């Protein structure tokens, strides 16, 4: 791994994003608009907004990053630039970390906006610090990025990449505790939700909301999110082959 190369990749991904105004809007504005819409839906009912707000603060960045990353990296694979890069003195880790770094930077901006909006303007009740909320939110976005990098290896077209959304993300959304508390799920489904990373992302957000300090549960949840992201990145690295058929 060479920091020069990692940073070159991150800088390049950000430069590409800057040109793509629609994607920037999707990354930065759409989560905020959705959260505002939610607040509006539960017109005046602060209780409901307080209970669904934090999970959605975890879910939106995860989904958006998953989608954008899987399509972007797929484009890299199919355009021949990946083959070219891998024939150059570039480590696989440089490429993956470069991507992760670029999207983490975007995730930070996205989280600051979303947290600022929900906590600042819409009055969401949070015991924990805004900083903790932002950190957890960025980590969720990085998890989405890492999974997106990984699944892009299994798609051949952008159309196929998008299909991973309903296949891999929606089940996590259903089981993450947003609709039914996880401990109220049938035993089998609860066990399934125990191994889905998004469950921990939502749990972490709820922890931050409920407690003003880093509880041991929060530490555990955050470790699982970080560990899953790292695992997905390593699996992603394994799918990058310098030699292909």
């Amino acid at each position, binding site marked *: 791994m060479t920091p*020069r*190369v990692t940073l*070159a*990749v991150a*800088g*390049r991904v950000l*430069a*590409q994003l800057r*040109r*793509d105004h629609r994607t920037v809007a999707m990354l930065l504005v759409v989560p905020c608009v959705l959260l505002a819409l939610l607040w509006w839906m539960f017109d005046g009912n602060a209780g409901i907004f307080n209970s669904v707000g934090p999970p959605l603060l975890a879910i939106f960045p995860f989904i958006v990053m998953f989608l954008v990353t899987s399509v972007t990296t797929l484009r890299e694979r199919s*355009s*021949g*630039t990946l*083959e*070219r*890069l*891998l*024939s*150059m*003195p*570039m480590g696989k880790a440089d490429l993956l970390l470069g991507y992760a770094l670029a999207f983490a930077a975007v995730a930070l901006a996205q989280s600051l906006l979303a947290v600022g909006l929900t906590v600042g303007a819409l009055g969401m009740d949070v015991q924990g610090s805004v900083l903790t909320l932002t950190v957890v939110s960025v980590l969720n976005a990085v998890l989405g990025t890492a999974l997106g990098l990984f699944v892009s290896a299994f798609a051949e077209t952008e159309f196929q990449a998008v299909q991973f959304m309903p296949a891999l993300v929606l089940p996590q959304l259903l089981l993450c505790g947003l609709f039914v508390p996880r401990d109220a799920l049938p035993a089998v489904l609860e066990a399934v939700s125990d191994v889905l990373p998004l469950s921990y992302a939502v749990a972490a957000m709820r922890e931050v909301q409920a407690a003003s300090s880093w509880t041991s549960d929060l530490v555990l949840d955050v470790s699982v999110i970080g560990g899953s992201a790292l695992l997905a990145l390593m699996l992603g690295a394994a799918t990058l082959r*310098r*030699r*292909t*058929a």
Partner: protein
Amino acid sequence: MANKSPAVDISHLRVVRGGRTVLPDLSCTIPPGQVTGLLGPSGGGKSTLIRAIVGVQKVQGGTVEVLGQPAGSAALRRQVGYVTQAPSVYADLTVTENLRFFARVLGARTAAVGTVLDQVDLGHYADSLVGRLSGGQRSRVSLAVALLGEPQLLVLDEPTVGLDPVLRRDLWALFHDLAAKGRTLLVSSHVMDEADRCDRLLLLRDGQVLAEGTPHALREATGADDIESAFLALINRVGWQPDRQNGTPVRTRDKEVAP
């Protein structure tokens, strides 16, 4: 020349792609400091051979040695410049942004960006988005990227497709300039009229080396006026089988001619 070891030395290379044997048993060498043309019909295995030399192709057997090391070795990644058949540059970045990025990856000097831009004659388009360039311009950006790190071996898969005669002449002049500086070039093409611009030719059909040698020797060997006819003559030889004998500039099954 004779005592210099080859830049690329391939023996008994076997490549299977998607269940079909593309290169059954290919052996050839590419001399250093020359422009070698890789010619042959579409689907003959040119790109596959090139990929094997660059070290991005899975191979089923044989050896490919590049600049004295096994193809794909980490040390070779700085010494081999590769241009894929489809331009592999970022359409949503400008020409300069593309070149700067690859220069950073290669650890090349930033000044190299200006140099290669001039070499491919794209100075006026430095700030244009690659996605808004013509096909030929785009492939020249791709070529410029390969020139960045001043690699010892340049492997170019159809770099002159879609270019007008003037540009093609200029690029071939560039290739010979580079060869004169001691670099080795392997340039694929299925345009036979480019054959005469090469120092040496490698004719490939159905994954087999039909012939290798200088354009002149090849015409002599077949009694043809141009390479296209020489190529057809070689194909039409009844019962023709590829054969390999070391040290002969031209080898076809039934005839050997010195250059």
